[in-house]
């Protein structure tokens, strides 16, 4: 009998240890990823140093005289600078977030404060379902519909009438630019902001809302002074979460803007490239590069993107966690 019991207990212990070990897969993966990327990026770090972040030209020669610089084999005329892509990424994400904040919060206000539950429920379901649409489809739509509309109709109009505002003037036309990228990213992150905001705003304690109503506040005043302050932290978290998504978005930008725009933007219509879109398209070229330095530089760029997005996500998760503190449920979000 005791032997049997001991056996069962061992099973329990093995179960616990084994599942604990398997559960750490995500942690191991992230550590391994960083180590591997660092290993492969090492030649580029040696070669480029700080110039990597200051340079605005990325050109990897596919043939030519191989020289050794800082102990790394490279081709004469190689240059690896990522400033253009960093600026492009930050600028397009900033536009996206600026557009998505009012739209996302407005949607959440509509879903929780304005619409009756019978209207809000199907709209929420529809939005969550549509938020699951792959980014390549958004990119395709941007390429077919949004890009041409902006370039041909919307941007000339703005440039003409609002040209006195900085960054709104300037040459229009040709290809899709920063604004198109920002709008497509905004469309993709609005559901994130809206759904996390909605989830916290729903949790506002009823006593507070009813108390404010009893004291004579109108519905909007309750929203403005009770609900929004209550949900503030989580809303900020959701915005940063959306920012993280926008920073790393690849396909939509690659399809709408391409990756060949190697100059700093001068207005919101300027064509740009982002880190992620460039990483997608340059890898093909890097494969053909004889010394492997282009791949090393791309790995360094990957580390930069990893650092940016992980930092942004850590901040977002902490804020959302804090915003949801006290409620029993945890959040799992895109």
């Amino acid at each position, binding site marked *: 009998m005791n032997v049997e019991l001991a056996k*069962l*207990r061992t099973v329990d212990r093995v179960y616990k240890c084994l599942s604990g070990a*398997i559960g750490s897969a995500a942690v191991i993966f992230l550590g391994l990823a960083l180590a591997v990327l660092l290993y492969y990026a090492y030649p580029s770090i040696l070669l480029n140093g700080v110039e990597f972040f200051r340079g605005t030209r990325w050109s990897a020669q596919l043939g030519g005289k191989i020289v050794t610089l800082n102990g790394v084999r490279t081709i004469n005329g190689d240059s690896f600078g990522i400033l253009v892509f960093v600026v492009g990424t930050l600028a397009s994400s900033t536009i996206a977030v600026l557009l998505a904040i009012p739209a996302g919060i407005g949607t959440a*206000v509509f879903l929780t404060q304005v619409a009756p539950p019978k209207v809000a429920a199907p709209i929420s379901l529809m939005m969550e379902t*549509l938020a699951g649409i792959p980014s390549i489809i958004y990119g395709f*739509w941007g390429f077919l519909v949004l890009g041409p509309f902006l370039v041909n109709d919307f941007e000339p109009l703005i440039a003409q009438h609002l040209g006195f505002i900085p960054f709104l003037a300037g040459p229009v036309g040709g290809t899709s630019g920063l604004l198109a990228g920002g709008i497509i990213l905004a469309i993709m992150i609005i559901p994130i902001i809206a759904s996390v905001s909605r989830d916290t705003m729903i949790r506002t304690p009823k006593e507070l809302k009813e108390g404010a109503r009893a004291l004579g506040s109108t519905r909007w005043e309750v929203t403005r002074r009770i609900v929004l302050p209550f949900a503030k932290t989580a809303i900020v978290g959701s915005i940063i979460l959306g920012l993280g998504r926008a920073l790393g978005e690849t396909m939509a930008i690659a399809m709408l803007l391409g990756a060949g725009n190697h100059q700093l933007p001068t207005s919101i219509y300027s064509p740009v490239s982002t880190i992620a879109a460039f990483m*997608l398209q340059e890898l093909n070229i890097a494969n053909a590069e004889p010394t492997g330095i282009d791949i090393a530089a791309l790995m360094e760029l990957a580390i930069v993107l*990893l650092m940016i997005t992980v930092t942004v996500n850590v901040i977002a*998760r902490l804020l959302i966690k804090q915003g949801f503190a006290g409620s029993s449920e945890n959040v*799992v979000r895109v």
Partner: protein
Amino acid sequence: MDDPVEQVRLQEILPQHTWQDPRVILRYRRRRALGHLVAVLAVVCIVIVLSPLLDIAFMFFYRGALAISIPNLAMTSSDGGLANAIVGTLLITALAGLVAIPIGVIGGIYLAEFSGQSRYAQSIRFIADVLSGVPSILLGYISFVIFILYFGWGRGGVGSGGSLLAGAIALSVLMLPYVLRTTELSLRKVPNSLREAATALGATKAQMINRMTLILALPGILTGVILSASIAIGETAPLLITAGNSNYYSACLTSCPTSYLTYLIWNFVTSANSINGESLAYLSVFLLMSFVIGLNIIARVGLRRFSKI
């Protein structure tokens, strides 16, 4: 003061000497008007937000439906169809699930049943949440470095070589955090009283989990699995880097490239010389959206009915 309802409300909320004060009444009306204005703005907001989403849905369902034809669906890309891409997408997703689901479910069991709030468990949760925010292209890069550069599977990059399994593993990392966290959450929803009852009846922890909590949490776990599969089905960037592309059915796991639905869209947008490219691109958008929306509806609406907790 002709509106009796308003009169009553004002009397309820304002001190008596102000009931007839026109300034107070005006102010109250202004505050209410502001509320109405905001409500209208919120409606405008939802219309602006939904219209591109609806445009995407309607436009692609319409154009995609026009592209449906038996040759398009039955032939491989070498003959101008996308049968191999459908098979490739399903194969990649299935392989990714094969890796991610066991790891995610077992890890979720650990987080919900064994770990409590230990620091180790908290850090796993946190890293999993952060991992779900890592851009998919980075997962593709990491898979590329490990499997294609280091192991040399299907050496080559976009368009020239690639490896089915490397792509599937990249996607499995994408799926893992969703499966892990939804498994944990659905296990946590099982009431503790049931656990206590099982323990009181003499069940060991392993028996309790395998025969009771897992079964009760199954609908929730399946929801997470299905949603993560719907994300993996539509993924493109990591596959472009690792899985290459192919005009035929993929013949092997590690060093054969494969075709997948999202590639056809990318190919149509970026290169003009694909056979039957336009209708295949629309058709693959149609199929992707059907898969994704169908899986979402199954997960969000269908499975909820089977949930006993």
